[in-house]
């Protein structure tokens, strides 16, 4: 009967209830859409960055993160390969060597960031091979063919097909020195890197640097960003090698994670403001609806209705409105987010350039991630319960006679 009473009270003052409802719906849709765009875009950007270079996870020598040098290496034992092949959610893996060196063409010399990779495996992990800008990617990982950054080619004043000399300090401390042939260039959208980047076959790099069968890093691609923790655990359990570390993308790219966290905080802050505004709206309408009924409340208190029941009534009324509002808001919010997944917002101009600096796609995309709906709904529910506290307190303190006399 309390529920019936609450329901009818809500519809007695349609206009006010609809305003409250609209506030809840508006807040829910705004919050869901905003969070959807933020989290959807983060996921998009993380994927584009990790697929551009780092991979979703990396297996590294434990010293490599702090001191990326040839000495931070490890052998790719069978148990590692088995672990990678048997862990659920792993789509591919690619062993790499990294070394600093010098590249010379005629009179020009430039610093070089040398990556030894296996193109066949790298295809399953990153977009290196697809990012070929001119020429071709080498196919054998033991040839003397290399692919260089577009900018490096320009800086050297070289052309595709030219022979260059690479000089690097080897693992054993001696200087390695070998001729290579440029067969293509890549553009990754990272100017700095493009001015020094060199890809060569993993085996060629191992022989240039006297690394035997060793590598520095294995980059791993996972089927999504969410299960990385499980993959990380499973890998470390299977590999059980204290000299190795398994790092998720955010440990490999801490700056990316920080940038996202910063943006996320500002988003949550904005949401907070939105929700506080709605809270005041609810407080206002509930308070009005309560004060308006002081006389009615006084009468039922006189009849002997327990004060607490009357307080519940106020809560039930607000909760009913909030639940209806959240239901509508979630449905509309899901529709908006779904639309933005199918039709992402793509932009150009300065914003696009800014995004490209961070290797982000110039795109806003959304997500239907359930946690967004849950968090937004819980926040609005909490705030509406909180906004009810004061009106409910007034009702709790109302005396029958004061109510009856209230005009």
């Amino acid at each position, binding site marked *: *009967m309390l529920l019936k*009473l609450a329901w009818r009270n809500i519809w007695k003052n349609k206009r006010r209830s609809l305003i409250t409802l609209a506030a809840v719906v508006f807040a829910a849709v705004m919050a869901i859409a905003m969070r959807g765009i933020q989290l959807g875009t983060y996921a998009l950007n993380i994927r584009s960055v990790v697929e551009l270079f780092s991979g979703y996870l990396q297996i590294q020598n434990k010293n490599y993160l702090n001191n990326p040098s040839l000495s931070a290496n490890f052998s790719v034992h069978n148990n590692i390969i088995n672990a990678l092949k048997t862990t659920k959610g792993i789509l591919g893996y690619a062993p790499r060597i990294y070394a600093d060196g010098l590249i010379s063409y005629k009179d020009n010399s430039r610093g070089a960031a040398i990556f030894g990779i296996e193109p066949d495996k790298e295809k399953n992990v990153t977009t290196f091979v697809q990012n070929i800008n001119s020429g071709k990617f080498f196919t054998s990982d033991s040839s003397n063919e290399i692919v260089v950054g577009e900018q490096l080619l320009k800086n050297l004043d070289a052309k595709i097909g030219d022979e260059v000399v690479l000089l690097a300090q080897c693992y054993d401390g001696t200087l390695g020195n070998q001729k290579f042939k440029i067969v293509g260039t890549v553009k990754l959208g990272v100017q700095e890197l493009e001015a020094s980047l060199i890809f060569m076959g993993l085996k060629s790099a191992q022989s240039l640097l006297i690394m035997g069968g060793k590598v520095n890093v294995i980059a791993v691609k996972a089927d999504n960003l969410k299960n990385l923790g499980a993959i990380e655990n499973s890998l470390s359990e299977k590999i059980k090698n204290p000299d190795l570390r398994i790092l998720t993308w955010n440990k490999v790219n801490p700056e990316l994670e920080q940038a996202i966290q910063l943006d996320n905080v500002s988003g949550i802050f904005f949401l907070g403001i939105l929700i506080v505004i709605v809270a005041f709206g609810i407080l206002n309408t509930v308070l009005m609806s309560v004060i308006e009924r002081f006389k009615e409340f006084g009468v039922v208190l006189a*009849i002997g209705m327990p*004060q607490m*029941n009357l307080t519940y009534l106020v809560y039930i009324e607000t909760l009913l409105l909030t639940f209806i509002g959240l239901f509508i808001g979630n449905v509309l919010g899901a529709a908006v987010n779904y639309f933005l997944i199918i039709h992402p917002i793509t932009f150009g101009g300065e914003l696009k350039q800014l995004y490209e600096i961070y290797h982000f796609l110039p795109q806003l995309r959304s997500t239907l991630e359930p946690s967004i709906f849950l968090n937004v709904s819980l926040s609005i529910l909490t705030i509406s319960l909180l906004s009810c506290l004061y009106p409910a307190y007034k009702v709790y303190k109302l005396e029958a006679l004061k109510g009856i006399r209230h005009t």
Partner: protein
Amino acid sequence: MEILKAERLVKIYQDNGVPVSALNNINLTVSKGEYVVIAGPSGSGKTTLLNLLGALDKPTEGRIYFEGEDITTKDKNELSKIRLHKLGFIFQAYNLIPVLTAIENIEFSMMLLGISDKERKEKALALMDELGIKELANKRPNEMSGGQQQRVAVARAIVNNPSVVLADEPTANLDSVTAGHLLDLMEQMNSEKNITFIFSSHDKNVIDRAKRLIILKDGRIDN
């Protein structure tokens, strides 16, 4: 059997810090089944006295015994329980719950007692039948006349079989014919069900029909 007893009641209101004496040394005893009218001019303290007898307010001084128990020392929740279980109220402005139909208004106080849905319906309908207001069952207060609303209010007040029904000027908003019908109804309930009625009025027709009359003047009994 003595049901209500007031001893040396004094009520002094504070009106913005100014003390206003509303009742002064009231002694009164009401027995089971009595039909009492409290009369007196406006401002004489009728409402104040009914509020005290109805456990809605506390006296500044004096004691009130309800069925032998001192109710002036009880707290808010205990008084609320006494009102729910033992008392019925009829108000001048009817004061039905606007969003509930007549029968739901009558069921309301039974609901507060935790009586089951089915039993509530049956009891409410039976009572409405007895009071001749069955056809109002599904009407909302704003679809009923004043007289009709007040009959529903009477039903609401007596449905839980209270020991005492208190009514503050129940006929003040009704024309004399309708008021007469309402009085018939209350007298009928008084004699048939032995329900004790205490109500206030300054209407001559009502006062003439009183079985026991208490006249208030300036907060004192003036019989």
